[in-house]
């Protein structure tokens, strides 16, 4: 049941993007997905906190503010496990390129900021394999903050980190919370071999870099559909 990462290898490839809200990672992953799809490759995209099965419980917990750091962490891990067991792992075995918008490092960063112990977190997620490539969109904090706070002023309670009691003002709370998450990301960079992408560059420039990296690392023609439709 527990997969030992590194012990097994699958024909598929796993690419994850990480970074702050507003770092531009989702845009870049979307463009990458379109490109790979149009090349006729087997691609699957999945994002954080999206398992239908678990979603009801998560949103109830968030809405009614039932979540503590421990249950927040466990319920997100349950969500991840559901997607991992039912989609990510079988698709990797089937030779897909699996694209993940946020992966276990999001949990490591957020939950550690909320006070969970990192060794406990690492063990919790130890059933998951590490990606072949983790693209870290390194966008300076003020830039990321401006992109979010400029465009979408309604912040959700947990998104703003209000549960940490950092400030009564959601915007101020969000700034402090994101700052701490950013520190966690920087601390993980080396340990988990993040590949840094300059999130301040033009969208086209970033995408070009991402595509070059992928082409250099992955033998793309191997991931074409083999069956005719």
């Amino acid at each position: 049941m527990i997969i030992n990462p590194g012990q097994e290898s699958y024909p598929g490839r796993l690419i994850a993007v990480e970074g702050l809200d507003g770092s531009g990672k989702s845009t870049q992953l979307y463009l990458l997905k379109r490109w790979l799809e149009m090349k006729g490759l087997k691609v699957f995209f999945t994002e954080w906190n999206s398992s239908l099965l678990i979603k009801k419980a998560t949103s109830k917990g968030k809405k009614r503010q039932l979540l503590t750091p421990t249950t927040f962490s466990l319920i997100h891990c349950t969500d991840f496990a559901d997607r991992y067991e039912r989609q990510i792992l079988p698709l990797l075995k089937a030779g897909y390129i699996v694209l993940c918008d946020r992966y276990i490092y999001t949990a490591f960063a957020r939950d550690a900021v909320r006070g969970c112990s990192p060794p406990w977190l690492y063990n919790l997620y130890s059933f998951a394999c590490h990606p072949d490539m983790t693209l870290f969109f390194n966008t300076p904090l003020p830039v990321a903050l401006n992109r979010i706070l400029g465009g979408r002023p309604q912040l959700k309670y947990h998104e703003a980190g209000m549960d940490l009691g950092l400030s009564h003002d959601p915007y101020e709370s969000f700034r402090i919370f994101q700052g701490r998450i950013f520190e966690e990301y920087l601390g993980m960079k080396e340990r988990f071999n993040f590949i840094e992408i300059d999130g301040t560059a033009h969208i086209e420039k970033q995408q070009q870099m991402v595509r070059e990296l992928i082409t250099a690392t992955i033998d793309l023609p191997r991931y074409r559909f083999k069956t005719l439709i």
Partner: protein
Amino acid sequence: MQFYSDGIPGIDPHELTGRLIVMEGADGSGRSTQMDILRDYLENKGHATVNVGLRRSTLVSAELQEAKQGNVLGEITRSLFYATDFADQLENRIIPAMKAGFIVLADRYIYTLMARDIARGADRDWVRSLYGIALVPDLVIYVKVSPAQLIERNLRKNATLDYWESGMDLGLSRDSFDSFIRYQRLIQKEFALMQAEYGFATVNGNLSIRSVAREISSRVMEISGL
């Protein structure tokens, strides 16, 4: 009080002045009956009690109940779902009650969850670390009943064996009788292995209700301060 390992962030276990008594045992072991007797016994002596059990959290109990109906959860997902249910009750019921000086009576605790996960192939260290958030109880009573007796009692009560308590999802046998016996043996073996590490007070549940109750209350009296 103390936690097994990392515990719950922000909780100082020294603030927990209550007690935690856990009762473990299969369905049909007489666990719930003994729980009621113990509760009467403690309340009669003037102790305030709170009951907790598995799958009773506000957060995920309804979803877990739903998931139990169909085989929709993967092994890791199910483990984590149960752990979430446990953590929610630990933080929102067990810990507050213990801060207030109550005796918390837990109808099953992490050991059942761990044994079930391990019987399904989970890694021991993974499970142990997962439940490092749990409080170490003052007493864990394990009501042990032979699988043959369990079958007799379950059939007498329900005239059928529960799908999960028979471990039918493991594919040990397509026959629920055989599967039940084999699955309960697996669980008992796991409890025997955990015994050394967690120090259960094992009670022979094959005996009469009265003698089991007497055995349990004498164990409870050994908890200091009770």
